[in-house]
């Protein structure tokens, strides 16, 4: 495989299509960042709703989370892309990618956050109440700050996961790295070499991101929290 990489032909394909590949990469990275940002916020809200909302809100949040986690992401993208237009909702492939991945990511984030919310011991609730804090003050000032920190390792995994799985966007033709690769390959018929280039680009940004999020984990480290070693 390595010999293909070092071939002048592969290098030539890379150089000739550099602009297109980079525009695909830019979309992939943007998509990942936006999805992680919105997905985290939505996920935390869903987790709060599921854990602390009333019976009705808790049921809604649970139903949402389980439906999303119980169906393939591919099916969710197809539904958003093909099933909405008959109802007059026409979203571009890019918009469906942003929406679909965010909705999916939120459900997974919600479950990571919920696990962390529940790991905060009841003694802390009791002492917060004893200070005169209301239920929501306790949740926002005591429970959530700890839960978010507990969730960081799962969050960083999700980040890497989303970064790679945004490649599914190519199924609906959103202009990500894989879609651009497919476009280039359909012109020059060098499928193997083009996808090899795409894979190497993914490998490089995933490695870079892993290094970055590791530093992030260190920054938010608090003595006594489980993820230090």
């Amino acid at each position, binding site marked *: 495989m390595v010999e293909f990489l070092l071939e002048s032909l592969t290098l030539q394909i890379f150089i000739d299509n550099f602009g297109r590949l980079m525009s695909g990469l830019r979309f992939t990275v943007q998509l990942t960042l936006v999805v992680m940002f919105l997905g985290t916020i939505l996920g935390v809200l869903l987790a709060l709703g599921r854990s602390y909302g009333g019976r009705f809100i808790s049921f809604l949040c649970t139903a949402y989370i389980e439906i999303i986690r119980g169906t393939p992401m591919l099916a969710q993208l197809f539904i958003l892309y093909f099933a909405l237009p008959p109802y007059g909702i026409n979203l571009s492939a890019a918009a469906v990618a942003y929406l679909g991945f965010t909705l999916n990511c939120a459900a997974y984030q919600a479950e990571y956050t919920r696990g962390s919310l529940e790991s905060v011991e009841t003694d*802390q609730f*009791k*002492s917060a109440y004893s*200070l005169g804090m209301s239920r929501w*003050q306790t949740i926002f000032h*005591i429970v959530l700050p700890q839960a978010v920190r507990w969730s960081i390792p799962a969050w960083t995994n999700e980040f890497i996961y989303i970064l790679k799985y945004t490649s599914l966007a190519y199924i609906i033709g959103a202009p990500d790295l894989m879609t651009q690769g497919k476009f280039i390959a359909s012109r020059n018929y060098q499928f193997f070499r083009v996808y090899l280039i795409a894979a190497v680009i993914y490998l490089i940004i995933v490695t870079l991101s892993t290094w970055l999020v590791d530093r992030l984990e260190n920054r938010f480290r*608090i003595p006594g*929290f489980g993820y230090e070693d």
Partner: protein
Amino acid sequence: MTDNRDEHKPLLEIKDLRKSFGDNLVLDGISFSLNPGEKKVIIGPSGTGKSTVLNCINRLIMPDGGEIWLDDTEVVGCDNINEIRQQIGYVFQGFGLFHHLTAIKNVMIGLTKVKGMSREEAEAKATAELERVGLTDVSDSYPAQLSGGQKQRVAIARALAMEPMLMLFDEPTSALDPELIGEVLTVMKALAREGMTMLVVTHEMGFARSVSDEIIFMEKGHIVEKAHPEKMFSGPELQRTKDFLFKLDELYGKGGD
């Protein structure tokens, strides 16, 4: 409901407190009171409802019946429980420190978020309270970096910072290694000398003997006997009380200081 406004009005008065968990009757009509500055100790076998009494006083557990008067307010039926709770300091067996906050921030958070104090004010107050419990050099440490005794003292400082009129201690030394119990008891004794009204669930008979005005012996949701510590240790009225105190002696040593 009666509100007796005579001169010797108790600071805390509990009348016929009742609580069941399912079929399990935990409190079967508990009544006692504390005058301002009084210290009382509750003893009794485990599972007997001692902690439930404390939990009911600031309504961490909602009683099924009875009245709890804190000064002029009835706690069970009141609708401003968060204001009542600010006036009752609560110290738990398991400390209940907030793990994501340093010692000083643990003390500050109630002041800033509940009392609405400014950061600077809260920091000054918190520093003073940590000093009061003998902790100055660990104010920037996180709970995980503190010993059990230090944790419990931070928890006491956190409760005191709210300037409560009553302090509840729920087995404050039971989770501590023997060599760390002393530092917590020292702080509690100093607090007692300052005139704080205290209700303490503990097995520390030395503390009970030297500090308390009355020992309340509870069993199976009832108060079996209450008496001044000297009377309790020299000759309790009931055989059951004698037996229990004898057992405590065997476990924790004589009630000497």
